[in-house]
């Protein structure tokens, strides 16, 4: 139980940190950081994902809260290799999150003749 409380507190702190960072977060810088840090390689330049390199996960317009997004990026033990602070500064990660939120929402399938 104590650990759960600690984790919740940590998330809250992280959230505060992001709230601060989010104000400064730049989608434009995030687009560059998304490329510089190699995220595009598995997730595509628009965060669209791939059935073969991101197991279908789509990052653009992600509904993950920033805290969960950051926690996953820092400590994933699944197919994605972890990005720690030493190689992906928190400011860059916040920018990347802002960029992903800024990607235009996809068109409705019914509006694309080739997908009807």
């Amino acid at each position, binding site marked *: 139980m104590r650990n759960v409380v600690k984790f919740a507190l940590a998330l809250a702190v992280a959230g505060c940190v992001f709230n601060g960072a989010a104000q400064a977060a730049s989608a434009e810088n995030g687009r560059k950081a998304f*490329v510089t840090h*190699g995220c*595009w*390689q*598995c997730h*595509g*330049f*628009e965060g*669209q*994902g*791939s*059935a*073969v*390199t991101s197991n*279908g996960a*789509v990052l*653009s317009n992600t509904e993950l809260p920033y805290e969960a997004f950051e926690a996953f990026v820092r400590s*994933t*033990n*699944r*197919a*994605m*290799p*972890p*990005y*720690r602070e*030493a*190689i992906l500064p928190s400011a860059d990660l916040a920018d990347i999150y802002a960029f992903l939120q800024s990607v235009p929402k*996809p*068109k*409705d*399938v019914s509006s*694309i003749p*080739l*997908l009807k």
Partner: protein
Amino acid sequence: MRSKDSARDESQTKFNRRKFLAGVAVAGAAVTAAAPGAKAATSADSPTAAPSPRPSALRPNAAVAAAETGTPPELKHEGGKPGSDFMVDVIKTLDIKYLPCNPASSFRALHESLIDYGQNKSPEFLTCMHEESAVGMAHGYFKVAGKPLMTLVHGTVGLQHAAMGIYNAWCDRVPVIVVGGNDLDAAHRPPGVPTFHSAQDINALVRDFTKWDDTPTSPQHFAQSMVRMYKTAMTPPYGPVMMSLDAGLQQEPMRDYGGEKLYIPRYVPSSPPQGDTGAVKEAAKMLANAERPVIVVDRAARTPNGIKLLVELAETLQAAVVDQGGRMNFPKMHYLNRPPNVIGQADVIIGMELSDFWAVVNGYVDNGDHGIGFNESKIKAGTKLISINSVELITKSNYQDFQRFQVVDVSMPADAEATLPALIEAVRSAIPDSRKDAIAKRGEAFRKASANGRENVKKAAAIAWDASPISTARLVMETWNQIKDLDWSLVASEGNVSNWPNRLWPMEKHHHWLGRSGGYGVGYGAPASIGAALANRDLGRFSVSFQSDGDLMYAPGVLWTAARHKIPLLAVMHNNRGYHQESMHVQRLANFRNRVVYNGNDLAALGTSIENPDIEYHKLAQSMGWWAKGPIKDPADLGPAIKEAVAVVQSGQPALLNVWTQPR
């Protein structure tokens, strides 16, 4: 300067070259009968010409000059039919339609016989610029035509070039007949280059990944071995075969074998190995009584009939089918075609011609401590496993294409397609009446899941639809839009376009999807797609490929072969400007080591990008006789360009579009 086409210099040979051809006057034993042209060249340097001041460096004498710069001296004609003519007689009985080949001196006699004595028909010589291209073409051709091609390679350097293609064919269970020229007689073969290009046992280089090889020592031996090679290659599991063919045996005339008449053995196909009756019944009982049976297939459908049989089995059981795509096994839009995650709920899994059963039921996550991966099971405890796999019959030791060992409950080392009729009958007999309603309900659930799945795939395809570089989903669907009304065949899909064709195109015929390289040796896509397009050309079909950048650059000369021999193919490039798989690998390792990847001035890790400068593939293709356009970066330009290219291909020419794409 001597080339690899240097003539055999047999001027010193005054006796029969080979004991087994005793009685034969040696071909070219007396090169004194030089060609008229050679005589004329020689006379200018004749020692009988007027004396001149002695130079500090002696000029070559006439014989040396002729050997170094002249055409090969005409060989003294010996009576009798050349051995290589008889070899052509043998080859013609096997009805091999084409011979993609890069020329070389070690099989010059057979080459000459094929095009002159054999009139360049069955097989027709196709000029290739790399032995790997020749094998790749044969690989792709078989997967459409169902018949093997033969290639000739220089015994050492040519076979070394061909080796990766042969390994791909081995892993993909495709027959390719490889004949390597080799000059065995060390005492009489020419020194220098031809000796560099000779070896004791050239077949050793590929023995680990060929089904059978031989080194015939007489014309009759050749006839037996050639027919045996064909028969072995064409008996499932299919595979490449190799012959070392002595240059002397090709060149020398036939002799009298003491009155024994040479004969050509008749080729009679072997029946494929079928599963044991008891094992078939046991498997059928398990499947009939399963709550959630799953059928997993990789190279199960060797022929179009294999697809029909798999549909019959799946519908009888109303079982989910996971098609791993080694071949076109199961119609993609069929409601029982399901994604791999159905494995997790299965209580019985039958795997047919799987290249890796272990990986069907286990996962490997490349993300453990220090970057070392870990394993995890994908199935429930107690899940029963059944295997039908002919490859168990030809397992070898060295190369690890047999993958990890997986324990199964019923193991049939047999050909899946040949076993399916008996299995279907056994399943029908084994289904108890009490289970028929439950089986029907299972099917209804799959129909709903299938419809939902298709909608989700379309939604995923819509993301980044207007992006530049162009999304792979858009690339694939713009292509589909232009070919959907034709009798099309997707002959290769290299560089990974996120499997969009298999997820969005209504593939149902055997030639709609040909599978991949088998051994994942990069460089397969370009030659295999051209070989497959050759087979489709003869059948009146339209061939299309998704051609990756890295794959094309291994041996781009095959583009010229397509233009030279009028092989129509639409190659739509998935040009992501890198060896992208390797970019991700380096990134992964850098992350584990807490280091920032050094990219230089490129997009991805140094050594993995193909940019700075960008390769203008359209110009490369144009230079070799293709119609080509590019680079296409705006998705709005793609559809019209493909339409134009389709018209070109329909006129009989190959066409390439250089399209800048998203990474996957």
